[in-house]
């Protein structure tokens, strides 16, 4: 396969998309998003820069599009300059957003009605509740999108799963952020936190789904590995969803309670860093094990 790709790439004069640096591009996008979000939070929440309310509303709505625009500019467009690009990237993002719109949000709000009972529960109940409702639903829907759009027909190398999972997380979180910003009309600083926070939760679960798919498809792992990854995705997204509102709100005192946007921003950045670090570690480890197994089986040109 590698030789075939190299020969074909030599014929077309373009490098194969399999060598497209997915992790580097994804980290760059998250770094840029975080920098932009921090700038907005500091400018509009701490320094309270004046902005016309109508303009602020449009800017907040526009902010929900920024992750997708960055992704289109940094990942999708360059990807299509390569030989054999991942053609379903845009499709996965669009179907994920439509799934969030048609199933995800309506089921969370009208079927599970989490806003009516979960915020009133204890911390442990909230974590469990969000994991078993929002977490399972979001993870399940993203898994189904990836299963039926890319698994196994669009998987050639391990990073394919990561690239498609990132697209699913972006599409899914885009609709959630858009709906929240359109309904609640938050300030620009808070809208930035909503966009980053939603992306953080969805990214965590999508990357763990991708890890499961990678292990299942490329390593032909034990059948319980994929479900266990889904459990990790569900538990992680439930944990982040349950704890983040509490971390955003300041402690109650006789003077009232104020928000802590910088603290929330720190939590979001930490979520990105921990998610990427953890998943990259597991991904590299799995890739290294397979490379060793492949070389050990007598294939000298494994790389």
């Amino acid at each position, binding site marked *: *396969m590698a030789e075939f790709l190299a020969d074909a790439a030599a014929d077309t004069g373009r490098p194969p998309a399999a060598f497209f640096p997915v992790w580097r591009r994804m980290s760059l996008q998250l770094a840029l998003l975080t920098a932009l979000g921090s700038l907005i939070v500091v400018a509009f929440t701490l320094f309270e820069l004046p902005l016309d309310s109508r303009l602020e509303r449009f800017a907040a709505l526009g902010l929900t599009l920024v992750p997708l625009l960055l992704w289109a500019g940094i990942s999708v467009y360059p990807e299509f300059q390569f030989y054999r690009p991942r053609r379903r990237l845009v499709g996965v993002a669009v179907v994920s957003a439509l799934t969030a719109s048609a199933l995800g949000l309506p089921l969370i709000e009208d079927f599970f009605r989490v806003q009516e009972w979960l915020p009133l*529960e204890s911390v442990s109940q909230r974590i469990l*509740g969000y994991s078993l409702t929002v977490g399972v639903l979001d993870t399940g829907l993203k898994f189904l999108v990836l299963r039926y759009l890319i698994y196994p027909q*669009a998987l050639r*190398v391990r990073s394919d799963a990561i690239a498609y999972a990132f697209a699913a997380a972006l599409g899914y979180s885009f609709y959630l952020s858009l709906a929240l910003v359109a309904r609640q009309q938050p300030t620009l600083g808070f809208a930035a936190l909503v966009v980053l926070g939603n992306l953080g939760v969805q990214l965590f679960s999508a990357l763990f789904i991708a890890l499961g798919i990678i292990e299942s498809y490329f390593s032909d792992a034990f059948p*319980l590995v994929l*479900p266990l990854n889904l*459990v990790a995705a569900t538990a992680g997204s439930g944990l982040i969803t349950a704890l983040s509102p509490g971390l955003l709100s300041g402690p109650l005192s006789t003077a009232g309670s104020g928000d802590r946007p910088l603290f929330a921003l720190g939590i979001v950045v930490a979520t990105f860093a921990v998610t990427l670090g953890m998943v990259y570690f597991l991904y590299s480890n799995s890739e290294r094990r397979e*490379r060793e197994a492949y070389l050990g089986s007598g294939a000298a040109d*494994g790389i």
Partner: protein
Amino acid sequence: MEFETGRSPAIQITPRQRWSLAFSYILICFGLALGVNLRDGALRQASVYNNVEAGIRASYPARWLLEEAGADFVFRVRDMSFRGFNTRIEVSALPAGADSSARNLLDQLSLRRAQVLIDYTILGYEDYRLPDETDAISMAYAFVSRDASPFLESVSSLVNCLDILTIRRGQALVLSFCADASIYARELDTFTWFIENLEF
């Protein structure tokens, strides 16, 4: 540098992979079932109200706020978590003479409400049978709810209500249920459950 596994996209998934997909679907279904169970447990968690003096014992949603002995009611419970008009169930008792009819008592209530509620409109009367086979009469009505404070600048909302009145032992018991029109149909289940568990 990427590591190519040598797999072709044309390769079908292996039995192991098929099993892992099956387990994943089962896990998702199982997780959702647990979530539904958790939701039902939380939403249907009940507290018991017992008033020996009025001879009323009722179960109400545990998350709702209980208020006792108001000017016009024996007790009422309200869902304070809903933004806008809080769904409420109110139980009140009216003295009923030997020649009082249920319809007359409802008309009295209507006259009183028409003076205090905005755009109070009666939607209809119907015969109603309580779970213990007692006959009662129901009256559906609607009004417009507006925030008490004009500084909140909130939009008015339409509220749908249902009164159920039954006369027993020289006393008329009125069960009133009111909810925002957008969630009325859904919340009516809670009222039905409340009536099923009411003892008086």
